[in-house]
C-alpha cells in the first residue's frame, strides 16, 4: 500500500481516535495500581475469560429472537464471564495449593477454550450470523463505530473518576494492605472495585485492540512510567499520558491506513515508549543507573588510592609512596593504576615526585586521605566494638559501608565511640616494602 487515504479521515475516524485515546489513558491510569499490586497478569486471565460470555450472550440473544450482535448485550456477557474468571482465580489461590501463576494459566486457557468451543457452535448455526464475533479476539479499530467510541470514552471517564475518588484508598491497598486493614478500610471491597474496573476496561477495550492485546494497554504504560517516577500520583498520570499518546498514534495510523492491524500498532507504540523509558528514564532508566554506578565506583577507587598512600606514609614515615606498593595493595592492573593516578593528579591531589616510580600527596590530597582513613577506621572500630567482628576480618566489612557514610553518620559514630584524636588502625601494616 502506498500513500495514505486522507479522504477516509472523516468524523467517524476522529471519534474513534478520541475513543482509543480515552481507552489508553484510562487503562494506563488503572494499570498503575495493578502493576504495584503485582497483579499485572490478572488482566491477561480476565481478558481471555470474557470470550465465553460473548458467545453465550450471542446465543441467548439469538434465542430470544434478535440478531445476536447488540453490543451492550455482548459486553454484558463479557463482563459477567470476566468477573467469573477473576473469581475463579481468587478462589483457586485462596482455597487450594495452586499458586497464583498456575491459577491464572488455568482460568485463561480453560475459559478461552470454552469460548472457542461456543464460537465453534455458533459458526455452524443456521440462525444468526456469527461474522464479526471473532473481531473481539483481534480487535477492529478501523471499523469501529462512533457509538462504540462514545461508549469507550464514557466508561473510561467513569473509571477515571472512580479511581480519582478512591485514590488514597487504592494507594494504601497497593503499598500496605495490612495497614489498610488496621485502619478499618474494607479491603476486600476495594480490591473488588479495582478488579471490576479492570474487567470493565478490558471488556470495552476488546473492541479496539482485541482480547490478546488489550492487556498490553494495562501493563506496558505503567511499567514505562515507573522508570520516570517514584511517586504514585505522578507515575499514574504519566502512565495515562503514555497510554493516551500510544493509543492516539496507533488509531491515527490505522484510520489513515486501514490495512495495518491497529491493535498491534497501538501496542508497538506502547512498546517503543517502554524501550525509550527503559534506557532514558529519569529514576530507574539504564543511563541514570549506569552513571550513578560509574560515579560510585570512581569514588571508591579514589578513596582506596588515598587510603593506601596515607597508610604507607603512616607506617614508613616517608611521603614518597612507591608505585610497586600501590600496585600490590589492591588488585589494580598497571594500566588502571596509571589512570587512577592521572585523574588524582588532575584533581590536584598528587604532586610530581622526585623519582619516576614514586608518587606523593599534595596538602589537599593529604587532607582528603586523612578523612578517608579516618572514616575507614571509625567504621572498623564501630564494627569491632558493637558487632563483634574480629580485628583481622574487619577491613573488608568496613570497606562495604565506609564509602557511603554521610557526615551526620560520621558525627554520630564519633560521639558514640568517644573518639576525637587520631585512630590507630586495628590491623596496621606490618612490614612496608621500601
Amino acid at each position, binding site marked *: 500500500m502506498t500513500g495514505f487515504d486522507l479522504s477516509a479521515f472523516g468524523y467517524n475516524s476522529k471519534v474513534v481516535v478520541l475513543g482509543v485515546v480515552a481507552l489508553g489513558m484510562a487503562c494506563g491510569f488503572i494499570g498503575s495500581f495493578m502493576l504495584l499490586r503485582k497483579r499485572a497478569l490478572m488482566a491477561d486471565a480476565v481478558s481471555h475469560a470474557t470470550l465465553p460470555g460473548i458467545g453465550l450472550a450471542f446465543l441467548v440473544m439469538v434465542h430470544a429472537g434478535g440478531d445476536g450482535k447488540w453490543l451492550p448485550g455482548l459486553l454484558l456477557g463479557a463482563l459477567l464471564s470476566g468477573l467469573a474468571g477473576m473469581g475463579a482465580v481468587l478462589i483457586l489461590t485462596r482455597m487450594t495449593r495452586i499458586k497464583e501463576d498456575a491459577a491464572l*494459566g488455568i482460568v485463561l486457557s480453560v475459559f478461552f*477454550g*470454552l469460548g472457542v*468451543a461456543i464460537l465453534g457452535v455458533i459458526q*455452524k448455526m443456521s440462525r444468526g450470523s456469527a461474522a464479526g464475533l471473532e473481531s473481539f479476539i483481534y480487535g477492529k479499530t478501523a471499523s469501529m463505530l462512533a457509538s462504540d467510541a462514545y461508549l469507550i470514552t464514557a466508561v473510561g471517564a467513569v473509571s477515571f473518576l472512580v479511581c480519582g475518588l478512591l485514590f488514597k484508598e487504592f494507594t494504601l491497598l497497593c503499598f500496605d494492605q495490612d495497614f489498610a486493614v488496621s485502619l478499618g478500610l474494607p479491603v476486600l471491597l476495594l480490591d473488588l472495585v479495582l478488579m471490576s474496573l479492570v474487567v470493565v476496561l478490558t471488556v470495552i477495550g476488546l473492541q479496539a485492540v482485541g482480547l490478546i492485546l488489550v492487556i498490553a494497554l494495562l501493563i506496558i504504560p505503567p511499567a514505562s512510567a515507573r522508570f520516570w517516577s517514584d511517586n504514585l500520583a505522578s507515575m499514574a498520570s504519566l502512565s495515562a499520558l503514555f497510554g493516551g499518546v500510544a493509543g492516539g498514534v496507533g488509531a491515527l495510523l490505522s484510520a489513515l491506513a486501514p490495512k495495518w492491524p491497529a491493535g498491534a500498532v497501538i501496542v508497538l507504540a506502547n512498546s517503543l515508549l517502554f524501550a525509550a523509558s527503559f534506557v532514558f528514564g529519569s529514576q530507574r532508566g539504564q543511563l541514570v543507573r549506569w552513571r550513578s554506578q560509574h560515579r560510585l565506583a570512581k569514588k571508591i577507587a579514589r578513596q582506596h588510592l588515598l587510603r593506601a598512600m596515607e597508610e604507607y606514609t603512616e607506617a614508613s614515615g616517608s611521603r614518597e609512596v612507591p608505585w610497586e606498593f600501590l600496585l600490590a595493595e589492591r588488585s589494580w592492573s598497571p594500566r588502571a593504576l596509571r589512570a587512577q593516578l592521572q585523574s588524582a593528579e588532575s584533581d590536584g591531589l598528587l604532586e610530581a615526585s622526585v623519582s619516576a616510580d614514586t608518587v606523593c600527596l599534595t596538602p589537599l590530597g593529604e587532607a582528603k586521605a586523612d578523612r578517608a582513613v579516618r572514616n575507614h577506621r571509625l567504621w572498623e572500630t564501630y564494627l569491632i566494638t558493637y558487632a563483634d567482628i574480629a580485628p583481622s576480618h574487619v577491613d573488608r566489612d568496613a570497606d562495604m559501608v565506609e564509602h557511603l557514610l554521610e557526615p551526620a553518620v560520621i558525627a554520630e559514630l564519633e560521639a558514640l565511640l568517644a573518639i576525637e584524636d587520631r585512630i590507630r588502625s586495628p590491623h596496621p601494616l606490618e612490614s612496608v616494602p621500601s
Partner: protein
Amino acid sequence: MTWTAIDSWIVVTAMLSAVACALPGCFLVLRRMSMMGDAISHAILPGLAIAFLLTHSRDSVTMFVGAAIVGVLTAVFVDAVHRHGHVEESAAMGVVFTSLFALGLILLVRGADHVDLDASCVLYGAMELVPLDVIEVGRWEIPRAVLKMGAMVLFNAAFVLLFFKELTISTFDPGLSDTVGISSKWMSLLLMAVVAVTAVAAFESVGSILVIAMLIVPAATAQLLTERLTPFLWTAVATAVASAWLGHLGAIGLPPLFGFEDTNTAGMMAVACGMVFALAVLWSRRRSQS
C-alpha cells in the same frame, strides 16, 4: 454421533500433543513459571513469521528454529527487563510477550497476507484437517501430524529422563543446584527452548489454546493429587491423555444434545481439561477435610 477413523486420528494427534506439552509443563508449574508457557506460546509468533518470510516455506525445520530462538529470547528479555529495569517479573512477562505478539501480527498481516499462515490458524489449529495430510509408512497411511507429535513426545520424554536429576534439583532448590555446578539459569533457558519447540510443533495441528491448556492444567491437576515427582509426572500425563479423549467426545457429542452441530475440538479439550481439574479440586478438598 458417529465415531470414524478420522475421529481416531484426531484423538491420537491430540493425545500425543497433550503429552508432549504436559511433560515440560510439569516443570513450568513447579517452578511457578506457568505464565511463561502462555508468554512463550504467544511470543513465538514473530519467530514463525520471520522464519516464513525468510524462507518462503512452511517447512517444519525453519519454523522450529525460528520458534526456538524467539522462545529463548523471550525468556532472556523477560529476565533482562526484570533484572535491569527492576520491573516485577510477571509485568515484565506481560510487556515482552504482548510486544512480540503485536510485532508478529504486523509481520504476518503486512508480509504474509496472501498465504495460509494466518493468525486464527495459530490460535485454533486445524485439527479437522489432520487426517487429510498423510504419509505412507510401509502399508499404512499415517497422518503427518501423528508422526511429528509422536517424535515430539519421544523427544520430550528423553529430555525429562536424561535431565531428570538436573531438572529436579534446579526446580526445587536453585541455590543448591548452582553450588553443585548445575546452573539453574541454563536449565531454565533449556526448559524454555523445549517449551517453545513443543509449542510450535503442537500449534500447527492443535492450536495455541490447547498448547497453553496442556502445558499448565494437567500439571496443576497432578499437583493437587500427588506428593512426589514421579507419580506427579505420570498423573499429569494421564490427565492430559484423558482430557484429549474426553474433549473430542464432548466436541462431537455435547452440542447435538442441545440441537446444535459439533464444535471446535481444541476448545472442548481445554474445557475437558478444566473439568478434570475441577474434579481434582473437589476431591483434594474433601480429602483435606476428612
